[in-house]
């Protein structure tokens, strides 16, 4: 008995290269970024919180797509996004929330604020929103790009996270969640973001004084909380730059101190900046008030340049010891 003859195995077959299920970017629009809940907890190391600016819309999109709120969505600034779902894999639920844009799936109009099934090979196209600024696209399974410090968010200030989308990008998707999206969603209340403020009907958010309202010259607080502020074109994910009457401060530059999202800083030029998620973690110009309600921060996220904003005096903060 001889030993068994092994047949020649031949060369190892090369697997067909595949990127796996994902979204292929045909057109990123003006600015589309990957966002989740951000990377809070690292400010002492110089890391901004980042994350979706309109968190309620981000969460809603994920719920509709059957995802956990921590799944990454696409934050689309002023529409214009076109992406194709690539297989392999089953059809996936998607949902678009936030600023209402015309939505085409496979060439057919599709509803916003509702789960929509998309088959591999089909293309999603978002038009320009009629009002508001930022729309959110969730895909079942979530956008599964690599994490940095536990988050997939693009931070435009510090450069952490994936760069803004470019044509030709392939965004991997996570495994789709089991089962259908949770039933019984009441999305009516959250369906439409606050209309972009106009001079006739400005957006209003609550402003809490602090930490340094006393840095404003006499009358400054009254000016800040009564003026019709116009959102300036230089606004971005770092902050909303407001144009209006010049505010004067009495303290000038301070030893740099920590700053919170929603903080209203008054630089020497007197035109306030409201910090959004990609804000610097410390700064030396006085922060005189804070917009801290999540719903208010979401309103700020939906204001286009030229929108009109009023900062109404919020409830007084609790007494300190």
């Amino acid at each position, binding site marked *: 008995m001889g030993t068994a003859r092994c047949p020649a195995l031949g060369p190892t077959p090369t697997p067909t290269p595949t990127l796996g299920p994902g979204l292929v970017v045909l057109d990123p629009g003006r600015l589309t970024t990957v966002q989740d809940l951000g990377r*809070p*907890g*690292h*400010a*002492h*190391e*110089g*890391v901004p*919180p980042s994350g979706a600016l309109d968190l309620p819309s981000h969460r809603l999109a994920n719920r509709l797509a059957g995802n956990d709120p921590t799944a990454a969505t696409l934050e689309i600034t002023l529409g214009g996004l076109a992406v194709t779902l690539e297989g392999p894999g089953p059809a996936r639920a998607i949902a678009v929330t936030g600023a209402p844009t015309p939505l085409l799936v496979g060439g057919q109009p599709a509803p916003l604020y509702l789960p929509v099934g998309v088959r591999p090979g089909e293309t999603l196209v978002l038009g320009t929103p009629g009002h508001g600024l930022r729309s959110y696209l969730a895909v079942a399974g979530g956008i599964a790009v690599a994490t*940095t*410090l536990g988050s997939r968010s693009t931070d435009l200030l*510090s450069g*952490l996270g994936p760069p803004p989308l470019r044509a030709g990008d392939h965004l991997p998707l996570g495994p789709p969640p089991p089962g259908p999206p949770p039933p019984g969603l009441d999305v009516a209340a959250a369906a439409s973001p606050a209309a972009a403020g106009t001079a006739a009907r400005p957006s209003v958010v609550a402003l*809490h*004084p*602090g*930490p*340094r*309202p*006393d840095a*404003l010259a*006499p*009358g*400054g*607080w*009254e000016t800040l909380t009564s003026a019709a502020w116009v959102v300036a074109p230089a606004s971005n994910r770092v902050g909303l730059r407001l144009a209006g009457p010049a505010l004067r401060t009495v303290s000038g530059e301070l*030893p*740099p*101190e*920590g*700053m*919170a999202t*929603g*903080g209203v800083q008054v630089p020497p030029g007197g035109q306030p900046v409201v910090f959004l998620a990609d804000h*610097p*973690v*410390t*700064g030396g110009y006085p*922060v*005189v008030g*804070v*917009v*801290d309600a999540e719903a208010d921060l979401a309103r700020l996220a939906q204001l286009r340049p030229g929108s009109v904003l009023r900062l109404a*005096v919020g*409830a*007084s*903060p*609790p*007494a*300190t*010891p």
Partner: protein
Amino acid sequence: MTPGAGPVGTGGDAGTGVRIRAVGAAGVLVEVDDPPAAALAARQFAGESGATLVEVVPGARSLLLLARDPADLDRLRPRLHELVGARRPPGAGDTTPEPLEIPVRYDGADLHDLAERTGLGEDGVAATHSGSTYRGVFSGFAPGFCYLEGLPSVLALPRLPEPRQVVPAGSVAIAGCYSAVYPRSTPGGWRLLGRTAVEVWDPERRPPALIRPGTAVRFVPER
């Protein structure tokens, strides 16, 4: 409410040199007399972070505490003075015990200019800069960029009138009363003394920033 009447939501305590200012409903800015107090308090509060505090952010003379919600902050309030104003022996606990050593090749683009401005000569600038022990006070500008106090006053010069478009990663630089290491290539207006090969920022490392508020640092000239 007129802030002109006084800082809103401010509590004062002359005995501990601590002032507390409200930052919205779930945050406070605690002003302290000296940065070591802020760094010490930050380390004490670090035990709370994750559970109740979202951020503990030292400033140059302050500590920002951001809680998850107002109720979490309220639970901490009774302990704020105790934690921030804690009496301690001088020098104890305000920095890491052993200074972190950062090797530096003193050949920066501004070294010659600094040598002339200060009259110290290039070797003198290097010797002066490396002769001090520094302490991380606060972070800002970029991930891993920590402002270090302890700069000898002879080297205290304002930022460059025109910032550079590109400052190489690892640049060891000074501005005002601070020194710092640029974690990566960015624009910057600080005066460049030299370079280190040490990576002060690595997002894969835990913690990612090598120099943080409270970290003691010594710069060691490379031959």
